[in-house]
């Protein structure tokens, strides 16, 4: 197997190490919860590894050829979730099929990435034209709007880095970029005034001035910072974080897992984890750079953009830089669909890499 020997060690090792750290931390974070999420998360990781191998073994050109079908399937499942969805935590973003529940938005996101990569790869241009940009926006916009009306605005926001990363790499005129940023600012203020629910606005406000809502999100930020800060350099020790503090964090095994880790392992633990993410991201970038064709580059960029955004946003949130939103940390946070999707995209990235010499 000449193919396997060319697997990028940095990418796979960083993913595996992060997943292992995640498992240990999930176990610690659930110690005060009614259930230990460790066995379930271990199962998700195991399934994820199988999915990684499967998705790596597919030639990504086949995936790109199928991307229209996958994209349409993704849209159908998003519509289905609007009609038959199971409501959890205020948003109907779960689909129940027999005993299985899954979040179609995760899979639709992957399909959208494939479809957009195929579209952008077909354009042999140095920079994109306005029309092509608009088509790209529509390709991403349709599933994004469907997710947003669930209403899962956090999930919808995840489509933005996908689009941004791929467009930036596919090529935008500088003048256009500046205009886009200005338009985004205008849109943002519009959404603030008309498109947000009270609690969402409150979250943003709380970020800007935490003392305005000490009971809600401000309370969580404070709890998170107390946990992170009390870790100091070396941490309080594994399973020995003052969970009396973190007990008040509603999602410490998911969204706030980094706060648990920071408290127990200190700055060294955080630095190690962020370092592993840096390894993961730069390995993916290396794979993109040496990919065989335009499609490969764009596909890898799209997938890794999503991971980047999750990592940057979640870690910034835990340390109190940005408002609290339900954005989990790849490979570390507990979650079935999310864990599986991260392994699948890692598999696809590796699939691009092992085919860099192969001619089709």
């Amino acid at each position, binding site marked *: 197997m000449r193919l396997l020997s060319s697997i990028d060690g940095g990418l796979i090792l960083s993913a595996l190490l992060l997943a292992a750290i995640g498992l240990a931390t999930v176990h610690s974070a659930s110690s005060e919860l009614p259930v230990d999420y460790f066995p379930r998360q271990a199962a998700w990781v195991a399934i994820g590894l199988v999915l990684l191998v499967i998705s790596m073994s597919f030639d990504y050109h086949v995936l790109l050829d199928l991307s229209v079908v996958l994209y349409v399937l993704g849209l159908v499942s998003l519509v289905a979730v609007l009609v038959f969805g199971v409501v959890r935590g205020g948003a109907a973003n779960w689909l129940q099929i027999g005993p299985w529940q899954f979040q179609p938005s995760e899979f639709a996101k992957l399909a959208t990435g494939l479809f957009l990569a195929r579209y952008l790869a077909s354009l042999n241009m140095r920079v994109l034209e306005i029309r092509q940009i608009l088509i790209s926006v529509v390709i991403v916009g349709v599933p994004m709007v469907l997710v947003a009306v669930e209403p899962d605005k956090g999930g919808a926001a995840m489509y933005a880095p996908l689009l941004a990363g791929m467009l930036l790499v596919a090529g935008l005129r500088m003048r256009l970029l500046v205009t886009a940023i200005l338009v985004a600012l205008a849109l943002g203020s519009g959404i603030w005034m008309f498109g947000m629910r009270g609690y969402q606005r409150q979250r943003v406000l709380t970020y800007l001035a935490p003392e305005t809502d000490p009971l809600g999100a401000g309370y969580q930020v404070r709890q998170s910072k107390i946990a992170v800060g009390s870790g100091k350099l070396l941490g309080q020790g594994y399973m020995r974080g003052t969970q009396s503090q973190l007990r008040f964090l509603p999602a410490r095994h998911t969204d706030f897992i980094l706060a648990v880790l920071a408290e127990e392992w200190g700055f060294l633990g955080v630095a190690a984890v*962020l370092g592993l993410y840096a390894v993961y991201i730069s390995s993916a970038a290396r794979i993109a750079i040496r990919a065989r064709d335009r499609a490969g580059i764009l596909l890898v960029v799209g997938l890794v953009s999503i991971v980047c955004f999750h990592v940057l946003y979640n870690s910034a949130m835990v340390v109190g830089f940005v408002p609290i939103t339900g954005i989990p940390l790849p490979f570390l946070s507990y979650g079935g669909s999310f864990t599986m999707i991260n392994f699948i995209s890692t598999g696809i990235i590796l699939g691009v890499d092992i085919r860099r010499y192969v001619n089709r």
Partner: protein
Amino acid sequence: MQVVREHRDDLVSRVRVLTTLVTGVLVAIATGFWFVQLVQGDYYRELAENNRLRKLPIKAPRGLIYDRKGRLLVENVPSYNLTIDRSRSDRLEDSLEFASGVLGRPIEDLRKILEGYQGIPQFKPVLLAENLTLSEVARIGVEGLRFPEFEVEVQHLRLYRHREQTAHLLGYLGEASQAEIEEANGSYQPGDMVGKKGIEQTYDAKLRGADGERVVVVDSRGELLEEYGKKPAVPGRNLTLAIDLELQQEAARWLDGPEKVGAVVAMDPRNGEILALVSSPSYNPNLFARRLQKGEWKALIEDPNHPLQNRAIQNTYSPGSTFKIIMETAGLTEGTFDDHTTVGCAGAKSFYGRPFRCWRAGGHGSVNAHLALKLSCDVYFYTLGQKMGIEKIARYARLFGFGSPTGIDIQGEKHGLVPDPEWSEKARKQPWYPGETISVSIGQGPVLVTPLQMAEMTALVANGGYKVVPHLIKNADLPPPEHVPIDENALRTVRGGMWAVVNEPGGTAYGSARLPGVEIAGKSGTVQVIAYAQRLNTHNLPFKYRDHAWFTSFAPAENPRLVVTVFAEHGGGGSRVAAPIAQAIYAKYFGIDHGKSPPP
């Protein structure tokens, strides 16, 4: 090999730029962690170890409940509980000794209570004793300075002012069950007291309001350092019921006593407002406000008369002769009989080769529609029933609301039963016998109704064919009542017959329900509990073999404003036992002193 240029170099350089950007942000975030963990680390470590943020609930006061005239039915009264924060105690043994002295309880009891809380963090206050007397509260307040670990918590308990008299309609509170917590989608917390029955249950969301909370910073000794934030509680909304306390109490008085088992419903036929709803025997809901003692619960559950059951909606009975109201309306509407059709009654008549008796052995002679109701002639209705057939009878019974819940705003309503051949095949796995139609014609056989369904049926006759939805709340937001396809002339004849029952000499309730000053129209019913042949003398029969008594009625006969339905389980004859109770309620409602009081 064909090399595709694909502007590769451009793409690659952009990937490099982006990677650098992302790495830069990652470094910035890592710097943030460095700042929080290393520069501010001591500050946060101290916060984590020495100071604590605590969330303290602020309970929302539950809404009060008033009757239609603004008289208070339920209020909240303070009750004092003793809690202990074990982390603040210097020596737990001393603390318990002090508490034991104040409460007059052996110290072993208190120790045992604390053992039950071993899994709970030390700083979390735990409940040591409930319902402290004011003098105990005062002693803890004064001497408690030496024992800061104790705290007296004020908890508001529901006080049902009229106890047994309003128990079934108001219901009571209890700790939310696991199922209720899950169903409530986040509005119930474990340990919350929620409505379990009656009005308290139906309108729980309105009554409960929303609890608030306080976040306070406390030091390691648990002393409050500062209030960090506060969300005030939103008090529950008050409710005004359609109930008229005076009528409710009058009905309750007449049903109070040993061997007084039954239900009374008083309703406004124009809009379905319930003015009184009583079930007997009853229970004292104030017992549920505090933790129920084991013996008390057992006594309630094992009482053969089931005091927890709301007989007005949860028990079903044969309607007996009251069913003749429906029979006559159906016969006249369908044209099977008209007002002048007469049936000869000789005390019995043979159907399908079997004799069916009239309640009056001597017979009623020639009976028309008016007389049939007034005298409650069985033979007339046997004949009518045979001609109409069970299908039509069942259809009209359903039109009157039998066989389905009325939709009253308390839970637990029974459907009752309107039998027909289809039901017989399905439920009994046997064919419908024609003879059963004859029995059903006088309200015997498998027909079953709740007293509330009976009241709803009577209201429909009284208001000229409108099906009102009975409700306990005043100013309920309900759709306009539906008009039932029943002949207006038929209803007029039936109302005339019911008027004659009470107001014409010879009517079955002439002696027992007539009230000078207001014209009551009604129909009595007697339901045999054991077969006719085995009976000797009703008076000497043991309680459980005595007949059930019905009386359902409205007044004034013209433009009725009140429907009263009385059911007395094993009461004896309908006109003798049930009619006087209805009479007393009308007397109260119309302000007439008729000089009667409940028999002992």
